[in-house]
């Protein structure tokens, strides 16, 4: 591992105020950029000239070392700062680094220590600039970063779909005081207001009133108190007749209005609660007034007052709902605590311009939301001193919304939200648990020559098992829980333990077998009448999976459509290697090409299960082209284009695709369980679409109102 940049942000990094040393909750957040060497599976075509291709494998598989960029964010208690600096020093191999970017109160406090230990100059960055840079970055790059908090619903955390346009927004940072900032673009933001009544007021005044020193303990007290013993409510002033005013009797008329006496004792809990309400309501009110003035309806809240504290998220949300009459939404960020550190890092890496890349959250290397409470997830304390981590992998190409999505702002890739649906969650978590031993075995078996394959497979098993247990306790840990996120997490964990492609051998074998059948399949298809052939082609797309399939599943609409003019261009998202791609997709592609339709075939950039990868698809296509003149000429004339999705997931998120619809695409074909059922089942596109899959899971079949091995054949035409 090589570290290039790192940017520790000091105690309570994003607050403009230094948190006193030793007072609980002081954290240092460190952001650094590393290049990670990890194993990737590569396929390379053999030179077949003069060889007996029948007995040779189709292509060569090798595992190579690849270097990719990764962003690391770690949080640790300030007491570990020296250990942390030692860690950095040991890994600081890039001698070009002379300056370290730091922000937050700790940047001042630890300046000397850092400079002495590392021999680097500490460059202090403006707190708010860092905060906003970091905020833009997470809003742009992390799916389900944003959530609304709803205490009284089944799912406390309501994750929001990433909106393609994040600006403008209001950021309310509640540190010791409150800063209200309007962010209009990447570089344009303005402090539009603030308040001195913030986290420091809760803490300072709370400490005076209750003699409780720690912030967390004050919140604990508050969550047990009854504010009505201390606050004067509207009904205390008006008696029972408050309806006449149109005000609810339970509203607070005067905070601490009942403590206007020297001869009564008030409980610590009640006073803390009253204080919490007072401060939260006040901040909410001011935030709403600012939002109204600037005509904004989204407010992101951050700062140590909010950070990971359901109690404060609840009171702030209540206040915003009350004062805006539901017109403004209080939103929170999963990685709020890292914003300052991320921003400081980005400042330092400005020459590299990290915004030109896309970054994906690595579920294997990240601890989830609320993991700050160690009693809930003791398993995540993986490194001494750190208890919260975020890792993001750099993806080599920018990922954007597929322009063909009808409404990118409302597109939700996933069909079932497991955060919301407790029954579904239990079912799927159990499914993944039960399948885990098999996956670990297969991973070990995929590397028979490696001496430590067994050991790594066991580590993988343990890690993924722990993730699943965390998700049972905290389904919201990584944003909305879905079958896709469970599958992706499994892939990330496999990669973490150097199992880049456990299915590579299986795929190689199946591709070889299928290729041998290609010509005879084409011949038999060509011998069929037109209508029969269309049935058979669609059937082929679902082949290998289903045998009891009847003709009635084919939508008559699709047949009717085929009788009409050809499509200009079809974008096909491929699924599995082997029979599926070679005997299902290619004959279908061939038919489209013969009709005069251009075809873009999109395959995954990286491996996932037995899905066909882009590099495999190149070899397969080359081999088919050698056999088939239609494919051959289409490739030559660029009527058939092979592209990569940018993804390494068995599912498909069309809001972060590398594929840009070219050539006036007017048909999108999505096939397979992962892409057409777990995700995109409800996706609405601007053009015609075909979603095909066989439901190979009885629970899901039941949920969608069908039977196991039912065929999903959804042909959709956009409404005019």
């Amino acid at each position, binding site marked *: 591992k090589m570290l290039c940049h790192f940017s520790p942000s000091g105690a309570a990094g994003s607050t403009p*105020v230094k948190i006193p040393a030793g007072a609980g909750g002081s954290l240092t957040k460190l952001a650094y950029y590393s290049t990670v060497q990890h194993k990737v599976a590569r396929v390379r075509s053999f030179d077949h000239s003069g060889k007996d291709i029948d007995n040779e494998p189709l292509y060569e598989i090798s595992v190579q070392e690849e270097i990719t960029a990764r962003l690391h964010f770690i949080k640790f208690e300030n007491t570990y700062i020296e250990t942390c600096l030692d860690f950095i020093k040991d890994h600081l191999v890039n001698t070009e680094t002379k300056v370290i970017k730091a922000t937050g109160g700790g940047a001042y406090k630890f300046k000397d220590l850092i400079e002495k230990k590392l021999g680097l100059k500490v460059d202090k960055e403006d707190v708010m600039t860092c905060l906003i840079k970091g905020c833009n970055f997470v809003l742009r790059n992390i799916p389900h970063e944003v959530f609304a908090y709803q205490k009284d619903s089944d799912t406390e955390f309501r994750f929001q779909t990433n909106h393609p346009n994040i600006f403008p927004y209001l950021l309310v940072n509640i540190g010791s*005081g409150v800063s209200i900032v309007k962010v209009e673009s990447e570089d344009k933001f303005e402090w539009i207001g603030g308040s001195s009544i913030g986290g420091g007021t809760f803490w300072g005044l709370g400490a005076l*009133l209750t003699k409780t020193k720690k912030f967390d303990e004050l919140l604990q007290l508050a969550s047990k108190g009854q504010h009505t013993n201390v606050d004067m409510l509207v009904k205390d002033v008006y008696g029972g007749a408050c309806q*006449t005013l149109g005000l609810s009797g339970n509203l*607070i008329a005067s905070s601490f*209005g009942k403590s206007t006496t020297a001869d009564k004792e008030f409980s610590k809990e009640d006073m803390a609660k009253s204080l919490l309400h007072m401060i939260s309501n*006040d901040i909410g*009110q001011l935030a709403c007034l600012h939002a109204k003035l600037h005509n904004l309806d989204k407010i992101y809240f951050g700062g140590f007052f909010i950070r990971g504290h359901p109690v404060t998220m609840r009171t702030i949300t209540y206040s915003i709902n009350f004062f805006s009459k539901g017109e403004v939404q209080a939103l929170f960020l999963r990685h709020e605590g890292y914003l300052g550190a991320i921003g400081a890092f980005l400042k330092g890496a400005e020459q590299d311009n990290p915004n030109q890349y896309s970054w994906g959250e690595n579920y294997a290397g990240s601890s989830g939301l609320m993991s700050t409470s160690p009693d809930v997830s003791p398993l995540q304390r993986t490194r001494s001193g750190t208890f919260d981590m975020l890792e993001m992998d750099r993806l080599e190409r920018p990922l954007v919304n597929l322009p063909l999505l009808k409404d990118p702002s409302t597109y939700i890739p996933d069909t079932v939200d497991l955060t919301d649906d407790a029954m579904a969650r239990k079912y799927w978590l159990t499914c993944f648990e039960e399948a885990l031993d098999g996956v670990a075995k297969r991973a070990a078996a995929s590397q028979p020559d490696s001496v430590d394959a067994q050991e790594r497979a066991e580590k993988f098993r343990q890690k993924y098992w722990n993730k699943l247990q965390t998700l049972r306790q905290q389904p919201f840990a990584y944003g909305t829980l879905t079958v896709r996120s469970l599958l992706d997490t499994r892939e990330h964990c496999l990669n973490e333990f150097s199992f880049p492609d456990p299915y590579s051998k299986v795929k190689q074998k199946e591709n070889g077998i299928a290729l041998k059948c290609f010509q005879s399949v084409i011949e038999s298809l060509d011998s069929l009448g037109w209508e029969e052939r269309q049935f058979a082609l669609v059937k082929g797309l679902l082949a290998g999976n289903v045998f009891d399939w009847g003709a009635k599943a084919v939508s008559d609409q699709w047949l009717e459509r085929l009788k009409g003019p050809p499509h200009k261009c079809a974008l096909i998202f491929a699924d599995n290697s082997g029979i599926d791609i070679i005997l299902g997709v290619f004959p279908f592609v061939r038919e489209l090409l013969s009709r005069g339709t251009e075809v873009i075939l999109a395959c995954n950039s990286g491996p996932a299960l037995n899905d066909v990868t882009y590099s495999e698809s190149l070899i397969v296509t080359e081999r088919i082209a050698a056999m088939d003149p239609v494919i051959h000429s289409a490739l030559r004339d660029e009527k058939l284009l092979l592209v990569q999705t940018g993804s390494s997931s068995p599912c498909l998120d069309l809001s972060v695709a590398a594929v840009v619809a070219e050539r006036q695409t007017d048909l999108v074909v999505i096939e397979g369980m992962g892409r057409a059922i777990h995700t995109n089942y409800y996706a609405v596109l601007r053009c015609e679409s075909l979603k095909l899959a066989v439901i190979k899971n009885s629970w899901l079949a039941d949920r969608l109102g069908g039977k196991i091995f039912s065929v999903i054949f959804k042909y959709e035409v956009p409404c005019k």
Partner: protein
Amino acid sequence: MFLINGQSQPIFPWFGLDIGGTLVKLVYFEPKDITAEEEEEEVENLKSIRKYLTSNVAYGSTGIRDVHLELRELTLCGRKGNLHFIRFPTHDMPAFIQMGSEKHFSSLHTTLCATGGGAYKFEQDFRTMGDLELCKLDELDCLVKGVLYIDSVGFNGRSECYYFENPTDAERCQKLPFNLENPYPLLLVNIGSGVSILAVYSKDNYKRVTGTSLGGGTFFGLCCLLTGCSTFEEALEMASHGDSTKVDKLVRDIYGGDYERFGLPGWAVASSFGNMMSKEKRDSVSKEDLARATLITITNNIGSIARMCALNENINRVVFVGNFLRINTISMRLLAYALDYWSKGQLKALFLEHEVKFLFKICLMAKYKS
């Protein structure tokens, strides 16, 4: 508490009652032009009430007459007299009703005019304990009409409404009369136990914009808890001797000076009570410092909310009224300062000499006359 019995002129005694969350404000009109005939007819009861109220400045252990606010030789409904202002804590309301009952108030055939939340809360008690009917007047109505009436009444020949000139300059700051001849639109901020903010566009067109629970009750309540004081006056007195910068964390405490990136001056409070996060500093502050910080916190916050409301409603005159500001020059000057500074001179803070809801009673009396 003047009479409403269909006569063109209400019969004595003339009272107005504003029952707030913390304080009850009582206004009493003492007729000075009583004819011998009237004197003759005047029941013994009425006489003793008048005597009791006008010859004392304190009633029981908690009732106080604000002599300095007295409006002398006022003509109301064709009668000349003095208007007296009396206040006592709301928690003594039952004792007040009891007294009314003992003094056979009901025999005077009065209907008490009352406003404030307590008009609703104590209505039943007045009926059962005192055999008295309350005429409830809408609080916001009283407030608005009261403010609009003040200018025509005047304060013993002086202006009722005033402002601070050069509020940002301690040396040159002075209190000057303000002519409210053309009052609309105005933002009316009533600071009692809590705070109500109204936007007033005309005599009959006004709306409650918002309110906050951080008001006078919060200042007094927190002061009681933090300093052990027992009266509002005591709390204010302590505040006048304290230093809030020991308690609050200022912008300069964090940035060493101004925070230029955001144009924040070093003297601005970054975190109210922010220094109290540290045990060391908690141990070194005085009760006076704490009282001062509480006053500054509450006042600044009211100023801030009022300023935002004024911006949202596009109003540039803000009238601050309510009992919190009584004898509270620190808060008034701070409000004037804050409004001027943060609005870059666009907003003007105005103040009144009297509790406006009292004044509305006068207004109502005048209405009866017409």
